[in-house]
């Protein structure tokens, strides 16, 4: 067998982070090559380098494709050579037809005039090849996710694909659709098309993968040849998570009290696709003084759950009960959720958390302006006092409370968002990826704040994709996958292996 693709010694740095360290990947022509790894292991970065999203020169190492070294400077360079990537979030235009989407940017046209006869007849051929029985004129928005996925693949075929990269293609598909997709990959294989499949699902890997490369913390751990070796769940999980615990956490002595907040049978539908459940019946609770973690892979619905609880800020047709101290509360709007004692600290502090153009002072007080105002008139004396208090208590490194939040570092921005919600004085705080993109020192400070909050009798729910973090700061863990809770365990009994195992077992069972 000859290698169609070799990525040799690939390293890539972002400011402050080494995303990839000397990664090697060899894909043989005509095989299905799986890539496994935790969130942040570097899978997507590697694929973005391969497809030219990160152009040549922004990384170290070399890419040899079809026998020659390639230096892609954009996606169109790699597409030109038949390397097509299909992202987890599909890149289709919802209000255009299948045919228009398939040929978007690649229209069969003369002098800018599209030849629709050619476009439609070729679309029909392509749809037949992927086994999709829809009219080329059907609008994308009227198709289910499974069918949309097939349109993406047809689009790849239209570009004469030779190396197809699929990023967790079955994450949002049901069993039948997943199966059909995997069969399609096998069929492509028999026609000589090579595929790279990013997936966590053991049964999928067992079904289609010829080789599996495992990435961890930006490095290649190993490549397993499935033709000669049997796939072993334990081994893959250990490869994926087997790093040393290097982060430090402040000591924590939990004093867990009564049940404080609870949701029962929580169900949420996708905001754009009515009827498609994103959250499929979740029961969870947090006690006073307790830090509860929600683990899960990206796309498992954790943020959607949190935002739907926080005043239906996400989704439609939100159903289920929310209870605070045993009494049912109304969380149908953000104002009511805040009034009931909830706070949600967003994972996306720049677009959802801060008014970047405003200073620390007005960001801190924004969620609780009535507390610094009488009859709608702001007491700037009191406001400055409050802002200065939080600035020193949370150690927000800044020139003064008048510094614009845009110019703060990530960790300090996060402290401003936290201050805002601390000042709103909630009973229960939901922290969504509270330490994403901030340095180790600031992380420790955030963990200390979380400890203090719990010590003062509040309930804290932490959503994080970093499993060591959850293990280090939580008292109890929920594991979430595909809109459901698939595991619950006390933190002292939990381990990364156990968390990964509940996710993978659930996905195995669902198939």
């Amino acid at each position, binding site marked *: 067998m000859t290698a169609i693709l070799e990525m040799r010694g690939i390293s890539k740095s972002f400011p402050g982070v080494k995303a990839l360290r000397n990664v090697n990947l060899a894909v043989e022509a005509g095989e299905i090559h799986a890539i496994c790894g935790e969130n942040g292991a570097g899978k997507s970065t590697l694929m973005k380098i391969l497809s030219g999203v990160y152009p040549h020169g922004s990384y170290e190492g070399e890419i040899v494709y079809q026998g020659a070294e390639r230096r892609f400077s954009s996606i169109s360079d790699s597409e030109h050579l038949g390397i097509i990537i299909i992202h987890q979030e599909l890149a289709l235009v919802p209000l255009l037809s299948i045919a228009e989407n398939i040929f978007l940017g690649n229209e069969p046209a003369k002098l800018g005039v599209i030849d629709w006869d050619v476009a439609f007849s070729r679309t029909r051929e392509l749809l037949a090849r992927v086994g999709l029985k829809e009219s080329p004129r059907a609008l994308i928005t009227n198709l289910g996710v499974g069918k949309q996925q097939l349109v993406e693949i047809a689009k790849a075929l239209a570009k004469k694909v030779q190396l197809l990269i699929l990023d967790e293609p079955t994450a949002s598909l049901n069993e039948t659709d997943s199966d059909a997709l995997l069969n399609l990959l096998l069929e492509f294989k028999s026609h000589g098309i090579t595929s790279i499949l990013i997936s966590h699902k053991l049964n999928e890997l067992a079904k289609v993968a010829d080789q599996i490369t495992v990435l961890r913390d930006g490095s290649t751990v190993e490549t397993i040849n499935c033709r000669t070796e049997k796939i072993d769940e334990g081994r893959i999980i250990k490869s994926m998570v087997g790093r040393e615990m290097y982060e430090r956490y402040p000591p924590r002595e939990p004093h867990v009290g009564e049940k404080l907040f609870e949701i029962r049978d929580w169900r949420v539908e996708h905001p754009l696709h009515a009827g498609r459940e994103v959250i499929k019946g979740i029961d969870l609770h947090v006690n006073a003084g307790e830090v509860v973690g929600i683990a899960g892979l990206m796309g498992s619905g954790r943020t959607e759950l949190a935002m739907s609880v926080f005043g239906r800020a996400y989704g439609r047709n939100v159903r289920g009960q929310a209870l605070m101290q045993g009494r049912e509360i109304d969380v149908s709007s953000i104002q009511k959720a805040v009034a009931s004692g909830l706070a949600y600290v967003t994972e996306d502090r720049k*677009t959802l958390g801060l*008014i970047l153009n405003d200073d620390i002072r007005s960001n801190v007080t924004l*969620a609780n302006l009535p507390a610094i*105002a009488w009859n709608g*008139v*702001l007491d700037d004396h009191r406001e400055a006092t409050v802002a200065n208090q939080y600035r020193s208590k949370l150690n927000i490194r800044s020139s*003064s409370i008048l510094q614009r939040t845009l110019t703060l*570092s990530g960790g300090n921005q996060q402290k401003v968002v936290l201050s*805002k919600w601390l000042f709103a004085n909630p009973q229960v705080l939901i922290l969504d990826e509270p330490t994403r993109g901030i340095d180790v020192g600031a992380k420790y400070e955030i963990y200390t704040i979380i400890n203090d909050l719990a010590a003062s009798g509040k309930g804290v729910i932490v959503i994080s994709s970093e499993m060591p973090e959850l293990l280090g700061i939580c008292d109890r863990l929920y594991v979430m996958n595909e809109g459901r809770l698939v595991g619950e365990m006390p933190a002292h009994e939990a381990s990364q292996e156990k968390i990964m195992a509940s996710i993978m077992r659930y996905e195995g069972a669902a198939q």
Partner: protein
Amino acid sequence: MKHETIAAAAPSRTAGVGVWRTNLRDYGLLASLLVIMAFFELLTSGVLLAPVNITNLILQNSYIVIMALGMLLIIVGGNIDLSVGSIVGFVGAIAATLMVDYKMPWVPVVGLSLLLGALIGAAQGWFVAYARIPSFIVTLGGMLIFRGLTGNILLGQFVGPFPKEFQSISSGFIPDFLSPYASAFGDLALFGQNFRWTSMLIGVSGAALLLFTSARRWRREKEHTIETEPFPLFVGKNAIFAILIVGFSYLLSSYRGLPNVLITMGALILLYMFVTTRMTIGRRIYALGGNRLAAQLSGIRTERLIWATFVNMGLLAGLAGLIVAARLNSATPSAGNSFELDVIAACFIGGASASGGVGKVMGVVIGAFVMGVMNNGMSILGIGIYWQYVVKGLVLLAAVYVDISQKNQG
């Protein structure tokens, strides 16, 4: 990340530069107004700053300033209102019909007209805030609808004249009751026979009030170790403002005194400064325009807030409609034509950001007077109306260009 290094490298210096930079914008704007005034004062050989012309300048620009206050809130909230000129015409036409054709007394007519303006704003605001139609489209519709209705009501006629009291909303002056007593203080012949002492007193009190409140704020900021403007700058700025106010009051008092409409405008400017800087609703509008999603997730009712900015705009446009009608002493089908352009231009010259979240009352007032002085100066010089459009357009473009290139540097 780029800004992290900036923040880490010079934590103390950036703040000082920041204060300078934000203030520089304000001072730059004020300085340009003064330069433009000096320029036209020279070219018109002193006509521009003659008491009678200053009075005219105020009468001509008051309604633009008043509407710019409402437009500022709309723009800060991330929207635009193109319909204000047509609302001016429409409200004026209704008020005129009620007073002239139906002989309704002027006081209830004023109340009804303001209510009508607010209702129009409420209707347009509903479409923008709750039906989520872009404000550009809603108010473009409103602009056509109310211009059309104005024409239909007036049928191409001028409707007037109005009662004296109504006219004095716009063309009246502060009555003078101090002058008889003024001579008791000695020989004041220096000020002339008809010097309006009441007006002068109001002007001087206004300047004193300004000095008092800024001094109070400055002390407060010092207390909280917020970095304030450097002391000389603070003193200099306030001294210039005080001198300007007293100087203009003197000029106006030596003619017919302070116009009523100046008092209305001044009171509204103070009110909106207070609302934008000191009230929760003002703070929330800025947050909404700065980042609508973040504001929403902070528990702010963004829809209601957007709606409120439109109600407020309608109310102020209604008031402007009355002022314009009172000034012309008749309602005309073309009253208020293209006012929206001057109002919006005033906001952008004054430093409001088209993407929302940024803009100050003082900036907008100065912006309105930049437009006003140019209108007035060029008219005195006999420059054709079409060339005036060209010049105003270039000034608008230049002001925003300077603004944006400064921001991109920062």
